[in-house]
């Protein structure tokens, strides 16, 4: 039995430590630690709701758009604002751009290096690489040039960001040609994530940290020329998703099929819903709200959330709903049996809940399976979650068995399939908005508050999972502010009843070939995009 501490976990947003107990080549216990506390909720107190929109997104530099939207939603609920249809569409587009940016960046820049070995790519045969790319239906690149570039890089002897990694780890299983394809797409993905970010730049001023989705609507006024600029970019990104991200996923998956056998986690899935529909009903959002225990779907409300702190470095009361939440930090050092994380243990209906693309796709799949239409007829043929999941299950040889999704591989696949769905939606929304602008059928972009006192819960979804901002405004100033970030759900430590959090639970049962180099554990950790 060995206790392994993975600290720091790299290629994630922020700071994370994970300890696993490995017995007989299998993880038997795990502790996940958020190692940074900055006190965002405290900074917001006594400021104005709009300030919260601007400041609170700075919790996370990788999903700031979603935080900003959750913050705006919370303020709008508190101040009695309903945003206009124009603002709704602009916000959906900024959010979509971030999803595409984030999912591409996650798959290639953050996660790929756990499966793809660029050092191994050096021994690829260029002709075979082209043949493989064609067979896999993935896009070609100048593979020869990339191999040369890689070779000169490696010859130089300074490995830069590739330094020190376990490149000889036996868990790398791809043939060199596929490694080369993926490495080429790794470089291209750096370009594509930036193209997606340019869309946010145009709509929101800059990325990370956008400027326009202020409570009340948006400060961005769309013009046809601006929308043409973003349409062109959405199409470019969508093309990359269809011709690289999805085929790459399907090409790599067969080499790691054992990953459907572990990494499942708690099996409870929460989605607050994201991408607002015309009626502003969270259960009808393009990715709808819902809570799934396994594959059974139920409704969920903000009051279902509690945060336990008995294993977290806080001395405020445990088990509070964020509407009455408190944040009183009290660092007492790492103690795996006691307090060991800055993360609070978020619970939904008393249960640990996984959030993120897998959770959203499960909820959407179940909603669709029960007959709910996710997109309006006017959008035409869009690859909805059910269509995407069913076709992928078929491609992997497990048709009609959505339960295989509840695994490490499923979590990765769900993220990329979601990217395909969002790419389709984004193009439909731009066209819808262009139509409105052309015909002048929009009702403005900003609505004033109707009160200066109230409470609100802004529940939304970041690419990495459910985000909730709870606000209490009195006399135009913030009395209390609580954030339950995506990571709060997934990296949650044990709760008051000593029940593990989703990532901790997902690690249990994972095979570890070499306890000194727990690459498989890192795959599971990163599959949550923490």
């Amino acid at each position, binding site marked *: 039995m060995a206790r392994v501490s993975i600290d720091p976990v790299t290629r994630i*947003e922020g700071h994370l430590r994970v300890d696993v107990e490995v017995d007989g080549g299998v993880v038997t216990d795990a502790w996940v630690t958020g190692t940074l506390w900055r006190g965002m909720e405290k900074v917001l107190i006594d400021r104005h709701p709009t300030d919260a929109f601007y400041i609170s997104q700075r919790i996370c530099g990788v999903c700031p758009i979603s935080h900003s939207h959750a913050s705006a939603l919370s303020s709008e609920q508190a101040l009695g604002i309903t945003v206009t249809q124009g603002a709704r569409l602009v916000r959906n587009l900024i959010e979509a751009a971030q999803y595409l940016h984030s999912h591409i960046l996650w798959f290639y820049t953050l996660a790929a290096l756990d499966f793809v070995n660029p050092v191994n790519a050096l021994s690829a045969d260029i002709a075979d690489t082209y043949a493989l790319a064609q067979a896999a239906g993935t896009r070609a690149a100048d593979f020869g*040039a990339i191999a040369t570039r890689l070779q000169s890089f490696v010859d130089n002897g*300074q490995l830069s960001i590739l330094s*020190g990694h376990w490149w000889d780890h036996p868990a790398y299983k791809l043939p060199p040609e596929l490694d080369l394809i993926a490495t080429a797409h790794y470089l291209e993905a750096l370009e594509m994530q930036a193209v997606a970010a340019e869309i946010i730049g*145009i709509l929101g001023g800059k990325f990370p940290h956008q400027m326009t989705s202020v409570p009340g609507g948006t400060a961005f006024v769309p013009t046809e020329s601006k929308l043409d600029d973003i349409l062109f970019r959405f199409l470019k990104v969508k093309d990359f998703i269809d011709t690289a991200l999805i085929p790459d996923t399907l090409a790599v998956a067969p080499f790691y099929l054992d990953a459907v056998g572990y990494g499942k986690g708690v099996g409870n899935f929460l989605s607050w819903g994201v991408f607002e529909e015309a009626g502003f009903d969270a259960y009808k959002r393009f990715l709808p709200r819902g809570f799934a225990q396994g594959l059974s779907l139920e409704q969920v409300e903000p009051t279902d959330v509690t945060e336990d702190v008995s294993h977290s470095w806080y001395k405020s009361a445990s088990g509070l709903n964020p509407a009455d939440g408190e944040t009183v930090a009290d660092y007492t050092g790492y103690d795996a049996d006691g307090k060991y994380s800055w993360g609070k243990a978020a619970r939904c209906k008393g249960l640990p809940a996984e959030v993120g693309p897998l959770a959203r796709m499960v909820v959407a799949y179940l909603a669709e399976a029960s007959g709910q239409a996710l997109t309006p007829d006017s959008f035409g043929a869009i690859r909805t979650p059910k269509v995407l999941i069913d076709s992928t299950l078929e491609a992997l040889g497990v048709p009609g068995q959505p339960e295989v999704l509840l695994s490490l591989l499923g979590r990765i696949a769900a993220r990329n399939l979601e990217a395909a769905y969002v790419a389709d939606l984004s193009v439909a929304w731009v066209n819808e908005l262009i139509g409105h602008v052309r015909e002048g059928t929009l009702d403005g972009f900003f609505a004033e508050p109707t009160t200066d006192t109230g409470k609100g819960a802004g529940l939304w979804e970041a690419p990495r999972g459910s985000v909730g901002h709870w606000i209490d405004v009195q006399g135009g100033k913030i009395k209390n502010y609580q954030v339950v970030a995506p990571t709060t759900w997934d990296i949650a430590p044990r709760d008051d009843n000593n029940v593990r959090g989703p990532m901790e639970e997902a690690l249990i049962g994972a095979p570890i070939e070499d306890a000194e180099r727990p690459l498989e554990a890192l795959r599971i950790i990163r599959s949550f995009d923490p």
Partner: protein
Amino acid sequence: MAQEAHGALYDLLAVRGVSRRDFLKYCGSIAATLGLSEAMVPQIAAAIESGAKLKPALWLNGGACTGCTESVAQADSPDVATIVLEILSLNYFETVMAAASDAAEKVKEETIAEGGYILIYEGSVMTGFEGGTLVVAGKTGLEHLKEAAENAEAIICVGSCAVDGGWVMGRPNAAEATGVQGFLNHEGIATPVVNLPTCPVNPEWVVAMVVQYLLVAGDDAAKFLEMTPMVTRRITDAVYGTDVDLLFPKSLFGQTIHDNCPRRGHFENGEFVTEFGSEEEALGYCLYKVGCKGPQTFTQCPVTRWNRRASWCVESGSPCIGCGGLNWVDNNTPFLMRLSDMWLGDGLTYVQPGSIAAVAGGVVAAGLVVHGLGMKAAGRVPGGAPTEEMKEYDRKRMAKKGGDK
């Protein structure tokens, strides 16, 4: 000469199908970012082409949101792949590096031991709970920074958090965050620090500074400081309370956003946006009345722009919130008002200066009215009260003298 250099960047670019013309163009864009003249372009090209060895660099994340890392991933002149593969050997870069855990820490320790590297620091310096607000690999973020800073040739602070603590040091600064320079002063570490604020940092500025360091200064920290015009701004450290002098590259942080703003013409014309999403917004009127902090924020945003020049805050319709300023959250909130709120002490609240002034003015006006009525009632108006025969002081003194007698 330059073409022959082995492993040169230009060769690599040529392999990727980049023509010499394109290459010079991108060197030109670096020169423009640096504020250098076109005449420098061949020199820049030569410097990059001849750089066979990559410059070792460490990227440390303190109390960060990873936004500055994200931002640098959006650089395009040169792009991030070129930076990490052909300019810098970023041996430690948590968000992007392949290795994790001990393997990652080991590379970092080796680089520190060898020396001769640049340290890039993102995020606030977390001093709360003796550093317990950030612990990585069993050591506090403070220890990590100290170790990496002592042996570095120079430190580039990316983003406002690294400069002075950023939003994290905003009231009440519960996690006791501060900036790198303040912390290093406190620790007596004299490694030169260059500050690149805004939240997040603008990637083109980081790239410009790296190229400036390797090019103009020939990889020499002292020369870099000597040859790069700097603005010095003095702050009071958020944690230690000491005076700290911060260095900012003048070409990037010497002028206000207001001075370079494309909407400046509308400002002078007195054409303003009063409501978001309005007709005036569509016309691109000035955002001054909705609280734009451009007039007091010294950054080059309107020139460099963001996300590969796609747009920037003001162009998209939002007022500047001053994220490139010092203590930017406290100094600029409420963002949508002209003046920041004033803190009236613990347990009280923030008040707008205008409210304080109006109350003071109102009280005085009311006081004068009441006083005037009093003067009338006392019969002093008109004509005044009769003047005393003798000063009170003299009368008392005389009385006292009389008493003595």
